[in-house]
Structures are given as C-alpha cells and as structure tokens.
C-alpha cells in the first residue's frame, strides 16, 4: 500500500461550496477499480473521479446495515449513541445532522434516496428541506434522473446546496444488474442462474451449499454475530436438503455482484457528467461512499447484517473538493468523519469528530451491528466485542 500521500493544507473556500454526497449501498471497497476477467475496471467512472479526488483506502463504516450506517454518517455518532440495539428507540431526532448544520449555515439541503431503510418513516430526513424517496429498494436508475432535475432547481435557488443521492443497485439480490445481468460470468448455466431470479436465494446459501427449502419466513434479518443463526440451525437439521455449490456457482454469485457494481458506476457516472455540465470548473464538493460492504461467502454467508468483518465494513470513500490535493491515504478513517469534514468545508460551525484531512495514525475505528455488538479497528488489527 502506498503510504500517506495526501492532502492537508485544506483551506475552506471563500464561498460556501455546493456539496454532492453519493451513497452506493452495499458496495465493497475492493470493487473500486477491480479489474474484470478482460482487464477492464468495473468502475471506470469512479476511477475517473478518484483520479482527481482524495481516496481513503482504509475507510470503515460505523455500522453493518443501511439504517444505522446512514444515521451514523448523517450525525457523526455511533449507532449506540442514537438508541442502537433497540429499534423502538433508535432515532436521530434532536441530534445535529449534516443536513441541519448546513441548513443552519444557509444551505439548501435535499436528498433523493431509494427507499428501504432510507424511506422517510425511518426518520433520516432530519434537516433536509426536501427528502424524496423513490421506489423501495430501487436503483440509481430511478434516483439519478430525479437528482439531475434537482441540480437545476438547486442551482437556481441562489443558495449553496447539499444534495444526497442513494441507490440500492449493489444490494442483494444483485439481479438489479438488469441489462448487464451475468455479463461478468458469461456462459454460466448452473443452478444459480435460474435460482438467482428469486430474491431470497442468496439468503439460503451457507458455506458451500444452498438450502432451497429454507424459506424467507425463517430468515431472521436481525441476525448478528453471536446471535443464533437460523439458517445454520435449519441446515443442521436438514442435511439432506444441501445442494453443494461448485466454484462456478460462487463465481456466478460474485459476478452478479460485480455486474451490479458496474451498473451503479454507470449511473453515478451519469450524475457526475450532469454535474460537470453544470459546473465545468468542478467547484462542487463531491463525496462518494458506501454505507457498508457485503459478505460474498468470504466467511460462509451472503449478506452484511450478520458480520462485522472487513468484507461488510470496509467501504470506498472518495472526496473531491477545491483545494484538496488528489491522492491516497491508507490511514484508518471512519464514515463518522464525513460530517465534521463537510461541515468544515462548508464553513459551518465545527461539528464534533475527526476530520478526514487530519488523519491520526493512532486512531481507533469502531463499528457496530444492529444487535449492539462492536468491532474496534486500529492500525495493528481488529478485535470484536460481544453485545452486553
């Protein structure tokens, strides 16, 4: 890994900059710039952005699922400080948020999200002047066109603006790869090809087998490290149901994920191209990140809520901003740092937390699960704490 090259000396611009934050749900850090079997990047549009951006190669989310991760992103607070572990009391209401702080500094604040755990009823719209939620678990294909129309409205508002855009393209069942479908594994005609059309197929994979008799009703979506694993228990009780996976099946699964990453990259590219057409000097601060990653049978499961491993928490993080020197930093950072960093760039009151542009090599980065378990990462390694 390249040592710290970056930035520093980042001065707040004279005028409050416009800020675009893009969240690619479930995109693992290792898919950024990953080459396909023909040596071509899955993410050419993000690669182009990275060429002019600060790229944080050791960025970790504060949570392993969408709601908690975005709540932490918006507030700079760990989920446990927001009532995490108890969905009935989880809330960011009353907390300073990126949107509310920027609005207080004169910004127009808007979001275009793709439903799911970012739907308005989950309460993450705090501080946004406008919080538009598209189709449930939708694609950037729906949110990006709306976001582009908002670019025009925001530009005409006469205010600096914050626009947050989100899409689930890379989230299971990955067939949201749409037209790209199995383009990463051409020729695969195994059992997952048809089964993958059933959204819950990936929740029936454990270890090197598939258990089609394990029904969605049996899926405990709150499963967390240490919690009883219903699929494992079911599989142990029904060994005759196991359909062994061969390497080609696993390659297909991962290929679908990669095709979905390619699709997300296309749509983010459309958004960035539209932004550039409206801001040829690239004065807008652009942040691209993911809320969490995905276990693709790296540790025997598919998904993210069950695990606090690097595969589910290591995320891409790119920041392009006037005055920020492009380059890589390998120092540990957290998505909690995004809020104070953007508040400082906007000239808003200083928010609690660390700045991405003052990385601390002795930093500890904490991540939490929906069940209250946590992992702590340092430059020396990671350790795991069970829920109380």
């Amino acid at each position, binding site marked *: 890994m390249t040592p710290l090259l970056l930035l520093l000396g980042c001065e707040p611009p004279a005028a409050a900059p416009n800020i675009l934050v893009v969240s690619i749900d479930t995109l693992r850090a290792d898919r950024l710039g990953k080459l396909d079997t023909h040596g071509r990047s899955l993410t*050419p549009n993000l690669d182009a952005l990275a060429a002019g951006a600060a790229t944080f190669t050791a960025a970790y989310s504060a949570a392993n699922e969408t709601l908690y991760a975005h709540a932490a992103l918006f507030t700079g607070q760990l989920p446990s400080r927001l009532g995490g572990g108890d969905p009935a009391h989880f809330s960011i209401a009353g907390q300073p948020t990126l949107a509310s702080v920027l609005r207080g500094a004169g910004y127009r604040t808007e979001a275009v999200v793709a439903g799911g755990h970012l739907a308005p009823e989950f309460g993450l719209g705090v501080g946004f002047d406008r919080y538009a939620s598209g189709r449930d678990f939708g694609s950037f294909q729906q949110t990006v066109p709306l976001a582009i129309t908002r670019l025009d409205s925001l530009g005409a508002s006469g205010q600096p603006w914050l626009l947050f855009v989100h899409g689930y393209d890379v989230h299971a069942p990955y067939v949201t790869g*749409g*037209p790209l479908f199995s383009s990463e594994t051409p*020729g695969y005609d195994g059992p997952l090809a048809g089964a993958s059309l059933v959204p819950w197929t990936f929740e029936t994979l454990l270890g090197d087998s598939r258990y089609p008799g394990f029904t969605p009703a049996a899926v405990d979506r709150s499963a967390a490290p240490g919690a009883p694993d219903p699929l494992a228990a079911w599989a142990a009780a029904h060994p005759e149901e196991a359909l062994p996976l061969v390497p080609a099946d696993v390659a297909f699964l991962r290929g679908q994920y990669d095709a979905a990453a390619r699709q997300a990259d296309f*749509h983010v*590219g*459309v958004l960035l191209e539209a932004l550039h057409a409206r801001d040829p000097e690239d004065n807008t601060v652009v942040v691209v990140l993911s809320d969490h990653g995905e276990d693709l049978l790296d540790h025997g499961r598919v998904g993210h809520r069950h695990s606090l491993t690097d595969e589910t928490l290591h995320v891409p993080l790119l920041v392009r901003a006037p005055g920020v020197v492009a380059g890589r930093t390998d120092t540990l950072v957290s998505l909690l740092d995004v809020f104070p960093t953007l508040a400082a760039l906007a000239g808003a009151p200083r928010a609690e937390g660390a700045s991405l542009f003052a990385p601390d090599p002795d930093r500890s980065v904490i991540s939490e699960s929906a069940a209250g378990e946590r992992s702590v990462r340092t430059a020396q390694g990671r350790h795991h704490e069970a829920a109380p």
Partner: protein
Amino acid sequence: MSRASLAEAGLALTLAAVALAMAAARLSSPAPLHHPGPTLTLLHALDRDGNGLLNADELEGREPPGQPWPRLDLDGSGSLDARELEVAMTSLDPTWLLRAPP
C-alpha cells in the same frame, strides 16, 4: 445564358448540394447520446472484440428467462450500438428479471 446567370445557377446548385449533404448526414447519423461519457465507457468495457457493438455473448453470455435480447436490440440488427445500450441502461427497469417467468 449570361455568365452571371451561369454563376448564379452554379451557386444555387452548390448550395443545394450542401443542403442535401447536410440533410443526408442528419438522416444517417444516430441520435446523439444523452450520457455519452458513461455510455461509451460502458460500451468499451463490455466490447470484448472491439468492434464498437455488443453482441449477446458480450452482454449476457446466455439468454436468461424472459428472452430479453429483443427488448434490448431495438433495430433487430443482432447487436447493440451505443444508443441501444444507453436506452437499455436508462429506461429498462433494472429489476425486470425479478418478474421474468420462471
């Protein structure tokens, strides 16, 4: 016919030829892309034989249930050009496979 008339006729013919050429160019040129950067980047990434078009193998490797190829190949040419790829990526519901017949 006077020399001036001949010159005027020549000029008229030249202008007509230019107008016809421009019209022909308009007719033969594909519709401009709305998102040329990402579309051409994606086309390049998938175009394994480098001919500027995507065939079924390059895009999918097989025909998934629902026989999508005719829905993508709008002109029935057997391959996708940049415009057809852009239409597929921006207007074809990316979750359509979930509703494909088993």
